[in-house]
């Protein structure tokens, strides 16, 4: 129980805010700032009220841990989870898509495979200002979204059904304080030709559009497994988001993101067929997690001058703060995506009425790749841009409320605190959403994950790589470097020979920071983490691999089917923008530069 200075009972949240405010005041007094200083620093308003210091200018006096962020308090669990609608195709695009760029199109390179994988479906998507209500107690926000929504409507695609998306930039120059209306949209992590992949410098401007060709084919289709592609390279959960060089964090934080789901003859969306995974959309629910900051007026706030990593103190799911979700007492599949912009999360199921319980569930996919078979877990860690598909069986919680809790302790943009202090006790973390298992019992024809013995085999990694390349990630005077060199869209750091295999060794020399490293085009497998085999849930294909302090990971890749430029980068979006990234190309002939 908590009490304020008047002896009145207050909630725990309120008490923590009061304690943080009191600590702020003590620090300011210790800093011996005069009233003039306080006004100059923007800490005192005209009427003399002390504004919350920590979150809005965390660097005002000393490098403060960012857990002193102070968005206005809001009542949690009063809004239902927003279920993101599915995007509908259009009958036809006028003018018709062509290999060469069209007038007013921002694309500069021809479609390399448009006539090989002719689109069967066409979509139009418009990026524009999107009024959005994130919580009833906060004013309406002016965000940026796709088709007037953020998250935008979900693409539902099928393998073997190529599509073309005509993507319009209608974003205004008036950015309300952050964001740049110059965009390039990346399908993370599609097996996509370079000119449609949303390369960071392929940005296009207001009034232009960009045709993106998504073949929806399995890797290997033009090489190792001609005609079909390798079924073991199936992806299920992808996302589609802005990737504009130097402004990705601002634009994505402002709302430019969408889910993209891929189904096939095994992952069918129908629980009576294929792998018998819970049916989409009723029992297969995408959820995107973000942690954000709001200013004293309740307006979404972005810390423009932060180069380390931004932590939010308001936890959002599908664009709303701490929602509740009413569920039936049966199995659900959730597709979890963390968009940060910087925070790592680890999700547990917390029963506040029985906090010592270890509530287990199943992880079935890593970065959108179904695992060799389901793995029973108590928690799932998820860094920025990783996706984790899970199955939760709510029948064990019938009639109760159960929380999705992030128990990973993180104090600033560098990363979670090192183990073993990194996991907080049940109830002491962030209660991100609440599941209310209150709906009536219904039929569940999905398979119990305990009885699923196999999804797909993993592609073999025993082949001799054409080259082993090493990448040293470092921070030189605050500048993110890879092998001592810095980002430049116009310089290709190395060339991969099309249709070969490589090993990439990633080494983290940056000191205190952890980095979720992402490579476009192909999924990789982790051969070793610090020369040891990876943990079970990482025996998988992935496209974002977390690099912890001083860690060395060795990755296996095949690079197939398409040519052109692609990036490698840290997906902590603040690092990405400052600019922990490099360009590599696939060409018919590659090089063997081992330290590019």
């Amino acid at each position, binding site marked *: 129980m908590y009490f304020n200075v008047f002896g009145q009972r207050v909630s725990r949240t309120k008490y923590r805010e009061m304690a943080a405010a009191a600590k702020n005041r003590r620090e300011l007094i210790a800093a011996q700032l005069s009233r003039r200083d306080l006004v100059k620093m923007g800490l005192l308003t005209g009427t003399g009220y002390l504004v919350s210091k920590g979150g809005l200018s965390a660097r*005002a006096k000393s*490098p403060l841990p960012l857990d002193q962020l102070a968005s206005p308090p809001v009542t949690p669990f009063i809004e239902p989870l927003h279920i993101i609608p599915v995007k509908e195709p259009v009958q036809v695009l006028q003018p018709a898509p062509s290999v060469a760029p069209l007038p007013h199109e921002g694309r500069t390179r021809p479609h390399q495979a448009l006539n090989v994988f002719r689109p069967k479906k066409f979509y139009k998507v418009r990026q524009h200002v999107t009024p959005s209500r994130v919580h009833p107690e906060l004013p*309406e926000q002016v965000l940026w979204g796709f088709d007037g929504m953020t998250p935008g409507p979900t693409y539902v695609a099928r393998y073997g059904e190529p599509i073309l998306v005509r993507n319009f930039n209608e974003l205004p120059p008036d950015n309300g304080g952050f964001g740049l209306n110059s965009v390039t949209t990346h399908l993370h992590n599609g097996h996509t030709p370079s000119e449609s992949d949303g390369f960071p410098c392929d940005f296009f401007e*207001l*009034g232009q559009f960009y045709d993106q060709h998504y073949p929806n084919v399995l890797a290997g289709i033009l090489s190792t497994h001609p005609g079909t592609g390798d079924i073991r390279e199936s992806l299920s959960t992808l996302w589609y988001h802005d990737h504009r060089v130097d402004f990705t964090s601002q634009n994505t934080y402002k709302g430019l993101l969408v889910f993209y789901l891929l189904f096939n003859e095994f992952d069918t969306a129908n629980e009576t067929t294929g792998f018998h995974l819970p049916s989409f959309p009723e029992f297969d629910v995408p959820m995107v997690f973000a942690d954000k900051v709001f200013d004293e007026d309740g307006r979404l706030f972005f810390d423009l001058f932060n180069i380390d990593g931004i932590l939010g103190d308001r936890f959002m799911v599908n664009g709303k703060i701490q929602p509740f979700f009413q569920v039936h007492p049966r199995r659900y599949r959730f597709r979890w995506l963390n968009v940060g912009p910087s925070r790592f999360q680890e999700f547990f199921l917390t029963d506040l009425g029985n906090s010592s319980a270890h509530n287990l569930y199943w992880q079935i996919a890593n970065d959108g790749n179904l695992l060799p078979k389901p793995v029973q877990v108590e928690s799932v860690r998820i860094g920025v841009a990783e996706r984790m598909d899970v199955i939760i069986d709510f029948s064990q919680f019938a009639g109760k409320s159960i929380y999705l809790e992030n128990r990973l302790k993180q104090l600033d943009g560098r990363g979670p605190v090192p183990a073993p202090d990194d996991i907080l006790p049940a109830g002491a973390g962030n209660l991100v959403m609440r599941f209310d298992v209150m709906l009536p019992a219904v039929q569940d024809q999905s398979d119990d994950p305990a009885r699923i013995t196999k999804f797909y085999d993993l592609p073999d990694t025993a082949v001799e790589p054409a080259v082993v390349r090493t990448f040293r990630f470092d921070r030189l005077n605050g500048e993110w470097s890879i092998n001592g060199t*810095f980002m430049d869209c116009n310089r290709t750091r190395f060339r991969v020979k099309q249709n070969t295999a490589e090993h990439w060794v990633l080494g983290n020399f940056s000191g205190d920071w952890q980095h979720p490293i992402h490579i476009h085009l192909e999924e990789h497998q982790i051969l070793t983490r610090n020369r040891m085999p990876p943990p079970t849930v990482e025996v998988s294909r992935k496209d974002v691999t977390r690099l912890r302090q001083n860690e060395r990971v060795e990755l296996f890749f095949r690079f197939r089917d398409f040519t052109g430029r692609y990036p490698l980068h840290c997906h902590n979006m603040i690092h990405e923008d400052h600019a922990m990234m490099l360009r590599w190309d696939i060409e018919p002939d590659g090089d063997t530069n081992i330290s590019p």
Partner: protein
Amino acid sequence: MHTPNRRELLGASFVAPLLGAWTGTRMSRAADDGMEAARERVRKRFLPNVPLLTQDDKKVGFYDDLVKDKIVIINFTYTRCEGVCPGITSNLVRVQRLLGGRVGRDIFMYSITLKPEEDSPRALREYAKAHSVRPGWTFLTGNSDDIELLRRKLGFTNPNPELDKDKSQHIGNLRYGNEPLCLWAACPGLAHPEWIAESVSWVDRSRVKKN
């Protein structure tokens, strides 16, 4: 003369038809109060008007005289820095050449000293001369507390307090921005000068390709 407000209005009128559907539905209690209010919020939080002294002994206010209405490139350095600074300074010299006549007219470069006790205006003047710095790129010193406040507000800090105190570990990024349009980004000071110049051009929206 550079008038960002006119350009901003021009941009706004260009998009007005596209925004028609949205502006029609006026939101009550919307957190939207226009570009001027957004600018003011950014100014209050990040751009204090601390007094500084240029290498020509001129007193200036950081916001009022150096940043307001301008496109800027800002870095922190000191004349006797032997680590990253020589590389960064020589990069910036080339960036100034690449940007040509725009520096001093639309784009303003500022290097602020981390050692004001050593770097008097005269020391900065000599340093600038030795590096063939041309007009439009100003070196700045001032009161230690003011510079420290600026350093923190602009994010040139290290979250590790020990490293943050060590000036040889100072942040070598370049902060670039378009103040009236609230466009702020940063790139490494040791990146290729052509890349730095190209990056800065992105916030000069008058140069954006349209077709």
